[in-house]
């Protein structure tokens, strides 16, 4: 494969893994975060504290846990997901979900009480009330997704352990930068670093535009 083809493949896989894990984490975290954010009860507070702790979960530890789950002797070993992009997605979902969930829960719980009361007096049922609150919190939820994607695209430890950095199969931008530096391929590492930065800039500007539109 040519150098350009090689870089293109690594970049595409980085986007695919980070994008898929952010999407899956969003689908899990936003509904749960909304429900928990609407309930100011003791159990929700306890869960919030646990989530805040998980914000600081070291990616290598998450990677190790997923590695043990997916390894041959692990409970999910028969699925043969270790050293595959899907395995990398699972590892990143573990890292990103608590972040999106925690921020969603916080922004939903800070939506004015009057929003809930207004929807209630206008005849909303429980589901319609949740959707209304989520709509009011849309800008904050989008921020949660942006933070989650940022964590996923820049993450290196977990994808290295679970993906194994196999050439042509599980190489992503961050793991390639690490190995390039180890092999004194500084020029290649810097080029990949610039690509990573540009990708982040393009994606964030797109999300920012969406966020601007959701603001009043």
């Amino acid at each position, binding site marked *: 494969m040519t150098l350009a083809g090689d870089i293109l493949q690594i970049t595409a896989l980085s986007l695919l893994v980070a994008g898929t894990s952010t999407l899956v984490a969003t689908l899990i975290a936003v509904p749960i975060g909304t429900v928990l954010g609407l309930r100011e009860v003791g159990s929700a507070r306890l869960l919030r504290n646990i989530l805040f702790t998980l914000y600081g979960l070291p990616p290598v530890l998450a990677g190790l846990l997923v590695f043990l789950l997916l390894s041959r002797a692990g409970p999910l070993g028969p699925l043969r997901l270790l050293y595959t992009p899907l395995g990398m997605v699972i590892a990143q979902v573990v890292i990103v979900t608590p972040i999106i969930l925690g921020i969603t829960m916080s922004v939903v719980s800070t939506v*004015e009480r*009057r*929003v809930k*009361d*207004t*929807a*209630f*007096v*206008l*005849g*909303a*049922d429980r589901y*319609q009330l949740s959707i*209304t609150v989520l*709509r*009011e919190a*849309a800008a904050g939820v989008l921020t949660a997704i942006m933070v989650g994607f940022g964590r996923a695209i820049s993450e290196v430890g977990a994808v290295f352990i679970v993906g194994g950095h196999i050439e042509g199969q599980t190489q992503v931008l961050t793991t390639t930068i690490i190995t390039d530096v180890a092999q004194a391929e500084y020029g290649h590492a810097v080029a990949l670093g610039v690509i990573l930065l540009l990708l982040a800039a393009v994606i964030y500007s797109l999300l920012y535009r969406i966020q601007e539109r*959701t603001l*009043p």
Partner: protein
Amino acid sequence: MSLEVSGLVKSFGAREVLRGIDLRIEPGEIFAIAGPSGAGKTTLLRCVDFLLRPETGSIRYDGATTPAEPAPAIALRRRIGMVAQNPLLFRGNAAYNVSFGLCIRDVDEPELSRRTADALKALGMSDLAATRASVLSAGEAQRVAFARAVVVRPDLLLLDEFTANLDPTNVNILEGAVREYNRSTGATVILVTHNMFQAKRLANRVALLLEGRIVEVGAVPEFFENPKDPRTRAFVTGEYAY
């Protein structure tokens, strides 16, 4: 819709805000509840609209108490509309806000658009349909909130100091809209106000609420011209300092 409130008590911590309210409001009337700030007027309305649960007492709607099952309870809630003093408008434009109640009742698109446009037109807001709620003036926002409450044609309309702090033009428009809604639908209206002039202009009957208790209930002429209770007289004549 008729409303029968019996022995209603509501406290916040050690503070008893409603101390045994008894009221009967007939279908189709405009009933004003007057009283100074802190008398319990808003608390009473919030109990009627299920936003607060009283400790004791009951509220009967058309002779029936609140159903225990969620579906009939929502059906009852949807027969009641409310406009607050400082209404909250949802993110979006004026038309979105007005159509909210129709959306959640699954009203189909052509009817939804027609009724939203009619409601905005009735409040003189047609040209502001696409305007974002966040840039509306206080008077415009209150007109949108009123249109949002009545577009679903509630049988009972609760108005909580709904024109407080508005200029005379907006007060005029909104009071006209209340009269028209009451006349055209036969809906019952409960108006909470500390503005005795507004109570006199709009209501058929008035109750004075002081310190969580109903002091006197009467038809407008009798209440204002020949009050029985000295506290009502003091309130009506402006001698009552609050």
